[in-house]
């Protein structure tokens, strides 16, 4: 069972490594979206500090959506998804593996880039640390919930835009608790409550999302 999970993850990471261009696109998208905001609202440090956490988090949501379109689509097109669904292991495990792989490929780089972007927004060191921590708890949620959307829109015309429509409303709690944690540090009200709520949301997503997304895959492949 665990071996199957690792195989799914290793396979996706290997494939991403072979297609580094696609991978870099999503990371640069994140950097660019965040960098557009100071140009739009002006370089006033106090203002940037206020909007910083929210901007970085919203950009993280968008970046994860950008890469979600391909989570199952490539495998669906070349028939490997069918083969994986027919493997002797539960499909829930497959969905979980794909979501974890998505997080490793697209979520972890965000954690590394985010502090640099936080500095652009004049965030103090303590807030930067909480920003990374909130993203570390929050980005797996994005991958897990996103995998449901990716599975539901498999093979549809305009699937990419549709995923955005389906999944963004579901991301709302992650955004609120995630960005809220960083704001909590800035305003001095603390971030523990936000982070624990974010953690609870992660646990729930971890329990339910792979199961739903496996069902969605079955529905879509049929």
């Amino acid at each position, binding site marked *: 069972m665990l071996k199957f999970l690792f195989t799914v993850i290793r396979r996706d990471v290997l494939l991403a490594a072979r297609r580094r261009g696609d991978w870099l696109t999503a990371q640069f998208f994140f950097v660019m979206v965040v960098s557009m905001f100071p140009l739009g609202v002006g370089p006033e440090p106090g203002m940037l500090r206020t909007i910083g956490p929210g901007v970085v988090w919203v950009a993280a949501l968008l970046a994860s959506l950008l890469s979600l379109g391909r989570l199952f689509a490539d495998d669906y097109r070349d028939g490997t998804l069918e083969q994986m669904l027919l493997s002797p292991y539960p499909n829930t495990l497959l969905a979980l593996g794909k979501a974890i792989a998505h997080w490793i490929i697209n979520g972890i780089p965000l954690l590394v880039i985010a502090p640099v972007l936080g500095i652009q927004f004049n965030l103090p060191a303590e807030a930067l640390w909480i920003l990374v921590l909130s993203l570390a708890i929050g980005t797996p949620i994005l991958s897990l919930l996103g995998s449901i959307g990716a599975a539901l829109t498999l093979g549809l015309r305009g699937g990419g835009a549709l995923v955005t*429509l*389906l999944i963004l*409303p579901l991301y*709302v*709690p992650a955004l*609120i608790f995630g960005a*809220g944690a960083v704001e909590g540090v800035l305003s001095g009200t603390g971030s523990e409550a936000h982070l624990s709520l974010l953690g609870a949301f992660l646990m729930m997503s971890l329990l*339910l999302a792979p199961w739903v997304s496996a*069902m969605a895959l079955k*529905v879509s492949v049929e």
Partner: protein
Amino acid sequence: MNLYHYASPSTFYPLAGKLVPWFAALAFILTTAGLYISFFMAPTDFQQGEGYRIIFIHVPAAWMSMFIYVVMAFWSAIGLAWNTRLSFVMARALAPTGAMFTFVALWTGAFWGKPMWGAWWVWDARLTSELILLFLYVGVMALQAAIDDPRRSDRAGALLNLVGVINVPIIYFSVKWWNTLHQGSSLSLTRAPSMAQTMLWGMLILALAAWMYTIAVALARARTLILERERRTEWARAQLEGQA
């Protein structure tokens, strides 16, 4: 009584046809009565003036918007568990009405907000949740519309609906949490201070009217959906020819 008998599209279709006019008539009578009570009989609120009367529309619409989403999820769950086509049809038939009520709730909320808060839109916890609920409705309908195969479309929509319904309380909680941290709006849309007896009656009757309207419209829409899907079967052909 055999429930399966009524769950078959060919028996449901004429039954729904008989029920629609009754519910439509009830909806009409109740709406007229409710509007009369709320706009002519209910006293003017001494704090909010005449403007408060918008809550007679707003509150039933907001109730229905949430309630319909849950009812849809109920039919979706039944459809996924027992593979009953009629439940998927019901879930699909309810979606546009739910979205409509959500939109009405937002619209009237804005109308109420202008005189009370001095702004068309305030990021109040309830209004924000309602907005996200509208997004959830749009998501389900967009997904259903994007898939051509009715079977896949039904199931995909149902799954998304169920994920949404699990998420609604979490979203509501998170939005409320977010709202209390950022600001405390003193005047709430639904907490009309010391509601008079007639006000309560007006609101309840209008809420009942919204129910009847929803049932009538959903049944009518379900009938169309059934006819469209079953158009190749004998009974549906007979129906279509009878009408032509």
